[in-house]
């Protein structure tokens, strides 16, 4: 098992290489890891897994009730949702089944609810129902004035997106997948020159050779397609979503995910609790050209606050903990763009727009199915072995955290020593993350593994102490 962050890459060719260690690429690598005879690599441009869109979303485990019926996305979201819920329970990924309400604020939205209910049924989801204004108010007493009714979707849940990607990657690496970080694929050729034996991926760290190639490059999937195939079936237009994270003291204001009713005028914003005990407001939807524009804007944040004030007025009086933005890999198509090119021994996994976290495990199954078809007897993908289960550190408020566990502290006092006070992260958890299978490459990576420095003070109290631990473990060589 190995994770590399620098230095030369192995010369021997891989059987399969996945480009992009977001939630989708990591899930595919994990799925392939069950085929123990294959040599598999996961190659990522960033210094960490899950550092692209997968770290910056609204963290909802969708039912797929509102997908386009009959689409591939509808199917994979539905299946993925079940698969991930089961996997989360087994691996300790925090999930809270809070349910969602699509609130109708005007007559047009109210009139749209029956159609949405039908759509849910056509998507195989039959637990949704329409509820009246009184029931809405009873279930969400802090809601702003004027809610006329809602579609109740009890199956929607909130999940920890960081732990999900990390669990996939951890399990893949433990089962023998090589994870190469800081490894941007810049060029793709084939070897021997003119021949068709292997893809040659040129990266700043050298060349990766691989017989089969899977493109899970998220926002850059179209560019990689053009590099490999000389053509592409789609173009990615990043659609930015800005979000505001409110303080934990706001958590009691809301019990469900409050979804907007989609209308002709656009998607609107949602208010949702997070598994860390905060409340999210967002996202915006802005079509951009720049695939790196993950910054927030004054207008974006002001617009969110105006909409949030209507939905949950008291929320706006609470302190803001964080703001961030993510880019959805939208394309000109209304569905995922997953295509196999058997001739080129290549599979594209693109256009995974706003449901990729939920669908990740089903996408992985589907992609490995396509790969088996494309490769035939050339790759033995018929029987998968069992994967050793992983047990991820719990970041969720609905489950006991180490600082609350006398048993754990009795075995190791480091779990009783709180370093990050706002998020109650202990020295023991930080140490564990720094020496874990896939250790963080930065303080932000450490935050996504522990929550350290992610709270309301953003480091006023603990920033320097956390950095000291990070640097110290790095030097001792224990982590890297």
């Amino acid at each position, binding site marked *: 098992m190995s994770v590399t962050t620098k230095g030369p890459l192995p010369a021997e060719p891989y059987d399969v290489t996945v480009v992009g260690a977001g939630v989708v690429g990591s899930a595919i690598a994990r799925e392939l890891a069950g085929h123990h005879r294959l040599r598999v690599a996961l190659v990522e441009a960033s210094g960490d897994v899950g550092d692209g869109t997968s770290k910056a979303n609204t963290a909802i485990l969708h039912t797929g009730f509102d997908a386009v019926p009959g689409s591939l996305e509808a199917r994979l979201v539905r299946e993925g949702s079940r698969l991930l819920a089961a996997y989360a329970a087994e691996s300790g990924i925090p999930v809270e089944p809070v349910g969602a309400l699509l609130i109708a604020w005007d007559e047009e939205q109210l009139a749209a609810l029956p159609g949405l209910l039908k759509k849910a049924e056509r998507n195989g989801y039959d637990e949704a129902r329409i509820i009246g204004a009184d029931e809405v108010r009873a279930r969400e007493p802090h809601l702003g004035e004027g809610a006329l009714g809602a579609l109740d979707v009890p199956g929607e849940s909130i999940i920890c997106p960081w732990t999900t990607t990390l669990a996939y990657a951890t399990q893949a690496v433990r089962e023998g997948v090589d994870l190469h970080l800081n490894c941007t694929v810049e060029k793709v050729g084939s070897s021997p020159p003119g021949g068709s034996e292997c893809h040659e991926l040129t990266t700043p760290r050298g060349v990766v050779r691989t017989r089969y190639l899977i493109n899970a490059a998220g926002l850059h999937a179209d560019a990689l397609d053009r590099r490999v195939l000389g053509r592409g079936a789609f173009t990615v237009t990043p659609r930015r979503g800005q979000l505001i994270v409110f303080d934990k*003291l706001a958590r009691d204001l809301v019990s469900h995910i409050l979804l907007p009713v989609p209308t002709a005028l656009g998607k609107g914003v949602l208010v949702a609790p997070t598994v860390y005990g905060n409340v999210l407001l967002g996202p915006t939807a802005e079509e951009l050209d720049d695939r790196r524009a993950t910054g927030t804007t*004054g207008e974006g944040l002001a617009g969110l606050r105006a909409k949030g004030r209507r939905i949950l007025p008291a929320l706006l009086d609470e302190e803001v*903990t964080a703001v961030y933005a993510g880019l959805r890999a939208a394309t000109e198509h209304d569905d995922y763009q997953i295509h196999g090119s058997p001739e080129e021994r290549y599979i594209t996994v693109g256009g995974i727009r706003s449901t990729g976290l939920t669908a990740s495990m089903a996408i992985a199954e589907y992609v490995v199915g396509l790969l088996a078809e494309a490769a035939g007897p050339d790759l033995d993908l018929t029987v998968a072995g069992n994967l050793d289960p992983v047990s991820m550190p719990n970041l969720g408020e609905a489950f006991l955290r180490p600082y609350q566990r006398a048993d754990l*502290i009795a075995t190791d006092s480091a779990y*009783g020593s*709180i370093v990050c006070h*706002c998020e109650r992260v202990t020295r023991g958890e930080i140490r564990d993350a720094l020496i874990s299978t896939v250790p963080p490459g930065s303080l932000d990576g450490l935050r996504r593994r522990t929550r350290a420095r992610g709270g*309301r003070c953003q*480091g*006023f109290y603990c920033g320097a102490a956390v950095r000291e631990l990070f640097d110290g473990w790095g030097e001792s060589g224990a982590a890297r």
Partner: protein
Amino acid sequence: MRRQRSVDVLVVGGGPAGLAAAARLAASGAGTVEVLEREARAGGVPHHCHHGGFGRWGVTGPQYAERLVEDALGAGAAVRTGVSATGWAGPLSLDTTGPHGLERITARALILATGARERPRTARLVPGSRPAGVFTTGELQQAVNIYRQEIGTRAVVVGAEPVSYAALSALRRAGVEVAALVTEEKRPQVGRCRAAAARLGVPSVPLVTGAVVAELMGRGRLSGVRLRRGDGRDGRECVLACDTVVFTGDFVPDHELARRGGVLLDAGTRGPAVDGSFRTASPGVFAVGSGVHAVVPARVAAGEGVRVARAVRGHLEGVGWPCGAVPVVVGAPLRWVAPNLLSPGAPGSRFVLRTAKALVCPVLVVSQDGRCLYRQRVLGKVLPNRGLYFSGSWVGKVDAGGGPVRVALG
């Protein structure tokens, strides 16, 4: 499993306010007095302020903190470091976590002295990217003074109040060039000498007034800040190149524990509402220091610790808890007033006010239900982020059954 214990007085927070209260209470025979401090060392904020000017003798922050700790220990108080109060188990019972395990401590009197923090960049809704190199003064001072970490090469300091100048000196100590101090206000909120010393010093640090940080730039590491001067629409913009930015001031009480315990907060200070004896609306619970009104000089916080001791002793001896206190509220542009509860029998203490806008010779008017209780012209200028103290001589005229008392400009 939690160990259960009882003490007479439990103090949450071992900063100047909490330590001073514990020392005074232990010395006066108030029974078992215990301070919980979540950091590895007690002393609070002064612990990482390596500049002088603390206390009556102007010693450095760490020296001042040490002296407070010694006083508390010398008087017989227990000071337990590395122990966090994490939540409530009853009106006067707290749950704690420390390396020795979990405890549930029940007290006869509880003093919240949890201090204050600066609002970070996120809470100020400053747009832009999320690069490294973004600090608050608190983090900067710890990084420089305690851990001696590398900070950067060129910094912008946001704010021009006393704490901003403390950030400036921490940056200089760390060998960081300071490109500018930037404030939304028209003038610095420190004495003329201090402002001039920075501006005219070698190297000199320019002060940019009437400007806000409109965007942080750079990926990975900060590369610059975009400033907007004047008002939004016709505002001129410019970019200051820097790899470090320090957001200073904009203090907010660390009120989480108080709120989780249902302690009534004041809308202006956002800390627990207290009367002149630092009693909150929850019987047996007192609150002092920067956690009540952010932020006061360390010496003032310690002074409150000394003053709360008398009221705590009274409570332990069975003096009743006042009920039905009258709130004191402010009108814009005033931001808050403290104390902000008036209970019968509490000492007619001094009040402190903060304003959001600079005021010149303002007239303060105190009224209740439209009836004027007090009027005072304040001579000179009153700046934002500086305390304005005024007399409580009018407290006797308050109708205990009346509406809120209002402090506004006349």
